[in-house]
């Protein structure tokens, strides 16, 4: 049965009593109204116990009404949508909401681990550094699993998130963070001046503190109406600005659909805004802070402003009989708000001795004020029924019945975002708080975030900030507007007071269970710096990152050190102001959307024809083709045999292609490559090798000379982009005088390698306008022709070692040409072949590729000594000749073959080469291994110390990961046709 709203006020607040929303907490049914948060709705039903603390599992309730809530954390939603550690105080209520308490077993009311309280005296801060060491072997096996199970708060979702997220790239003249009186005024002032404005607030209702002031409602509504009417002003409720980054970029997360059971169709759950703001106004307000006193963590102890918020905004009675504990005048507002709502206020316990106007006002309402007094204890456990209080430095305790304690230790301006910019905070003695410091980025703080209190004053301060921000960008003379009616002048001055020293645990970090004694212990042990004390005690390291009570820890530490709070300081504030969901940050890039897919012009032919694909970089490339999706070597060997024995065709469109033109094109090529291209004949191709400036091989490929001053370079698939950037670097920064122009044409061409002894026959059946005979079109020739009416350029180059022609055609004609070649090749047994067969063939032939060009090998290592021109400059020449790179003992490229011709004992890439089966001394490693169709055995390429001098030696390939050792013979890398006759056939 549904829990009645026993604590809902009959009237007042911003909730819509005409509509009822049903929800459950730990399986029990509750109801609330639109405008409620989960916390206010639970409170309306009289729920006090919401969670358990991290270490002692003490009962915890609701202590704030905002995102800084350290205690009332729940698991919201279930299954794949479960959101652990959700702050009930900002979770907007929706119909059907399901929430569960967390970090308790078996139930919230009866939590076995609460036993930790009894042994608590033996578990001070940092105790784990001093124990769990005996016996040594027990840590992983025994202690750690126990600690891990006990730790953590809520549970993660159980499956992949069904919701979507996205990001938005925003630009504005003025970003205003916070929509209280200061924020609204700042936005309106800047907007009226003509600036492009974004106003963001984490709350689902805009207005900040105005939402607690019914008499200011007309002004708030008027401001919102005016802002909504400005085309260049964008209002973003439910949007938390979480970080202020360099160059005036801010990050924000908009909770688009978290207030709905599920996001609307085609809608996202959350959206991350990257905001480039020319000026920023931080009107982030301020948060009240607690005071440490024994049992200050009991459910029913909350911030005075929170109690006031539940009464004024949510129409809820947080208790029946309240005691206010304060060191300032502003807190009296809470007392009066409660009183006006018919809640008994037993007393205001005010640490200040001096009487004040506010005390008189309290007396008028018949509220007792205990000046110069402090609360020394709280009675009760899961619920409270009274407090003890005494004079500040007295001992005689008196008792008061109360079920609600409203605490106010003063206010902390929300300076987190400004701190991200590395501005130095300044200390204010009147407020006993840190204020924003001198800006170092284009920002200014306004309103209570800047230490200004009172609605009217905040509005005026915000308007000024908005005007200044706009003026700084040249936007002037906006229309003036009316400010809110002046409110009661309240002196925000506080009497610094942080801790009541008395018997019992007084908490400074309510989530991590850090007490004032823990801080003092850290100090005793030498962890006296705020960062050390924080890390040693875990104070300020909970989900609220110290926003709730960080300053308390500093105050206690400062007292122990005998120094000022200003000197001790607070731990560095870093992003995120409030934690941000991973999904929102990932945006559209979840799952297979991590990176875009790059497709060749022939992609869909491969799909239709059973290509089995592999992700290589961004590309998708067919490994092999199999209608039955069979795995293993058979389909690969079949394709490779087709090439060795008949003809095959392979999509090589992924090769990088760069069109290079200009009078100095040849000279440029000569400097990029180790070998010479300025001597290459027009209409010819040549294999080229590029080095990095450190002498390591960078890339290789064939480059053709299309005319006197025009070359077409091909690069490896992997390095295409890097090669272009490399060329641009050397041309633009080192040799700007070279008269050369170039651009990528990779996407322009579909390119296919047709290879095998019957290639010429196959192509002659479809190529028009080019004589393919060996005489007319020899190896390394380049020519234009047409196939199936499409223009093609044909390069007679070979990667497989067979007679081969690469056919390039404009991308849109790729499939036509490919299919025409297949058609013409049919009588000759043509087969399409994929990456696997391509690799097999190049390994047999001894062509190097990725595994050999891995950035660790020099040209000499790979046997390219002869390709390095003796005269003239080229990139990498000099550093490539450093002594240890010339050392013949370096691993150098060789071929290796299994001695055993059967396929029983397998060679694998990554095996190491040793001279005895059981040797541990590696002589090198196998880079590329394949089953050979030519030699019917395992073979491949390897980098071996003194490799070329070992040709003929019997060594071993050892693979300890699988305990395999295979006897091998070192041989030439060119397993197939070392004389290169076939490619010239």
């Amino acid at each position, binding site marked *: 049965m549904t829990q009645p709203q026993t604590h809902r006020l009959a009237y007042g607040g911003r909730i819509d009593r005409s509509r009822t929303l049903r929800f459950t907490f730990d399986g029990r049914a509750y109801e609330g109204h639109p405008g409620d948060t989960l916390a206010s709705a639970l409170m309306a039903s009289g729920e006090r116990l919401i969670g358990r603390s991290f270490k002692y599992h003490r009962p915890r309730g609701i202590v704030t009404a905002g995102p800084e809530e350290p205690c009332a954390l729940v698991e919201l939603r279930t299954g794949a949508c479960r959101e652990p550690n959700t702050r009930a105080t900002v979770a907007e209520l929706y119909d059907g909401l399901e929430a569960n308490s967390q970090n308790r077993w078996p139930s919230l009311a009866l939590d076995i681990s609460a036993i930790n309280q009894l042994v608590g005296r033996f578990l001070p801060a940092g105790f784990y550094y001093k124990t769990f060491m005996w016996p040594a072997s027990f840590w992983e096996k025994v202690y750690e699993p126990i600690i891990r199970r006990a730790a953590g708060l809520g549970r993660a979702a159980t499956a992949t998130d069904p919701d979507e997220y*996205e990001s938005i*790239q*925003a630009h504005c003249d003025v970003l205003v963070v916070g929509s209280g009186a200061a924020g609204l005024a700042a936005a309106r002032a800047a907007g009226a001046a003509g600036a492009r404005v974004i106003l963001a607030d984490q709350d689902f209702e805009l207005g900040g503190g105005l939402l607690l002031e019914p008499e200011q409602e007309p002004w708030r509504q008027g401001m919102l109406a005016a802002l909504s009417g400005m085309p260049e002003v964008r209002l973003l409720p439910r949007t938390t600005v979480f970080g202020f980054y360099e160059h005036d970029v801010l990050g924000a997360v908009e909770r688009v659909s978290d207030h709905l059971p599920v996001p609307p169709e085609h809608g996202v759950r959350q959206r991350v805004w990257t905001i*480039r703001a020319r000026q920023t106004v931080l009107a982030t307000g301020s948060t009240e802070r607690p005071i440490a006193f024994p049992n200050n963590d009991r459910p029913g102890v909350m911030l005075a402003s929170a109690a006031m918020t539940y009464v004024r905004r949510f129409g809820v009675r947080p208790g029946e009989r309240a005691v206010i504990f304060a060191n300032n005048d502003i807190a009296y507002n809470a007392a009066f708000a409660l009183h006006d709502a018919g809640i008994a206020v037993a007393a205001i316990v005010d640490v200040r001795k001096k009487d004040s106007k506010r005390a008189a006002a309290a007396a008028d309402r018949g509220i007792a004020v205990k000046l110069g007094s402090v609360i020394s204890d709280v009675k009760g456990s899961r619920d409270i029924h009274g407090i003890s209080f005494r004079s500040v430095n007295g001992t005689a305790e008196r008792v008061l019945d109360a079920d609600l304690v409203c605490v106010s230790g003063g206010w902390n301006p929300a300076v987190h975002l400004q701190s991200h910019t590395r501005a130095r905070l300044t200390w204010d003695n009147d407020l006993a708080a840190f204020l924003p410091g001198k800006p170092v980025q284009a920002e200014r703080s306004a309103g209570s975030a800047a230490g200004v209190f009172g609605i009217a004053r905040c509005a005026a301060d915000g308007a000024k900030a908005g005007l200044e921000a706009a003026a700084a960008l040249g936007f002037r003379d906006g229309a003036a507007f009316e400010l809110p009616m002046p409110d009661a002048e309240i002196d925000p001055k506080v009497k610094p007071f942080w801790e009541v020293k008395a018997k019992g645990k007084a908490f400074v970090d309510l989530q991590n269970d850090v007490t004032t004694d823990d801080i003092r212990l850290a100090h005793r042990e030498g962890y006296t710096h705020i960062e050390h004390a924080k890390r040693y005690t875990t104070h300020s390291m909970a989900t609220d990152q110290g926003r709730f009570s960080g300053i308390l820890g500093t105050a206690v530490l400062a007292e122990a050190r005998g120094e000022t709070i200003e000197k001790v300081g607070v731990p560095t504030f870093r992003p995120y102001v409030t934690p941000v969901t991973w999904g929102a940050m990932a945006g*559209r890039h979840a799952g297979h959307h991590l990176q*875009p897919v*790059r497709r060749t012009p022939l992609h869909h032919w491969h799909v239709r024809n059973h290509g089995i694909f592999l992700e290589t970089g*961004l590309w998708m490339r067919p490994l092999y083709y199999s209608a039955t999706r069979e795995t293993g070597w058979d389909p690969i060997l079949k394709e490779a045999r087709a090439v060795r024995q008949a003809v095959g065709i392979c999509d090589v469109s992924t090769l990088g292609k760069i*069109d290079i033109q200009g009078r100095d094109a040849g000279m440029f090529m000569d400097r990029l490559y180790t070998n010479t291209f300025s001597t290459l004949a027009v209409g010819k191709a040549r294999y080229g090798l590029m080095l990095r400036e450190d002498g390591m091989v960078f890339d290789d490929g064939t480059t053709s000379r299309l005319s006197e001053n025009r070359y077409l370079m091909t690069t490896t698939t992997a390095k295409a982009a890097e090669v272009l950037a490399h060329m641009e670097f050397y041309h633009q920064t080192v040799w700007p005088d070279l*008269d050369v122009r170039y651009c990528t044409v990779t996407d322009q061409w579909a390119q296919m390698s047709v290879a095998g002894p019957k290639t010429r026959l196959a192509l002659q059946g479809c190529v028009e306008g080019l004589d393919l005979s060996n005489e007319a079109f020899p190896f390394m020739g380049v020519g234009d022709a047409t196939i199936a009416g499409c223009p093609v350029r044909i390069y007679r180059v070979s990667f497989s070692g067979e007679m081969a022609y690469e056919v390039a055609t404009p991308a849109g004609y790729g499939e036509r040409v490919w299919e025409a070649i297949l058609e013409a090749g049919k009588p000759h047994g043509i087969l399409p072949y994929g990456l696997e067969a391509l690799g097999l063939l190049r390994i047999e032939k001894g062509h190097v590729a990725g595994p050999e060009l891995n950035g660790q090998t020099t040209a000499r290592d790979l046997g390219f000594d002869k390709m390095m021109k003796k005269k003239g400059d080229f990139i990498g020449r000099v550093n490539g000749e450093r002594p240890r790179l010339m050392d013949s003992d370096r691993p150098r490229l060789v071929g290796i073959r299994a001695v055993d011709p059967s396929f029983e004992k397998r060679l694998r890439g990554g095996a190491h080469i040793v001279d005895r089966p059981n040797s541990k001394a590696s002589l090198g490693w196998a880079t590329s291994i394949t089953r050979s169709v030519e030699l019917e055995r395992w073979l491949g390429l390897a980098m071996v110390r003194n490799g070329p001098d070992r040709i003929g030696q019997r060594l071993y390939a050892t693979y300890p990961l699988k305990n395999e050792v295979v006897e091998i013979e070192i041989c030439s890398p060119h397993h197939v046709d070392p004389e290169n006759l076939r490619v010239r056939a």
Partner: protein
Amino acid sequence: MSAPDRLSPFGPEAKPGRHGAAGGTPVLMTERKVDIVQVMAGRDANAKAANLVKDATGLALPGPRKVEIAGDAMAIWIQPSGWLVIRPRGEEGALAKKLGGSDDIAVVDQGHGRCVLRLTGAHAGEVLAKGSRVDLHPRVFPPGSVATTSIDHITVMIVKLDAVPSFDLVLPSNFAEAFLDWLRMSAAEFGYEIRPAA
């Protein structure tokens, strides 16, 4: 030689039709059938290149960040001394041939390597803003502007045509399908319609 039919780089999934949220004004997506040629001028050859393009197409070569638009044809500034010349599709390779080129002016046919997607509709700017890091606000990016940027890791040229707003997006063909995936996801909340190529 007349141009044989070619495959669209946007792939078989780019079928004409209305998708995403119903109601409201959809974003319209149309593949443009065009020829594209990249022109790169050598040192001190910008004027010569301008004349070359003027004679061949009637288009003037614009300066940085600008596009010269004449009817269905346009010339886009892409980098110092570098432009793309785009006009409705004609004979295969004809535009490049007509421009010819010389030792100090490189002319490179990109008619298949690049493709153009027209994006138009009241929400077109909002859709692009989900990926474009460039400010497309009319104050800073009026019609006749071009920006090359990166959207979802794909290098895209954004050409602002009018205040609707309408944009021509120049894409690398190998990424056309991937870009369309992203665009469809981003436009779904407003609803979108894929039009037949034109």
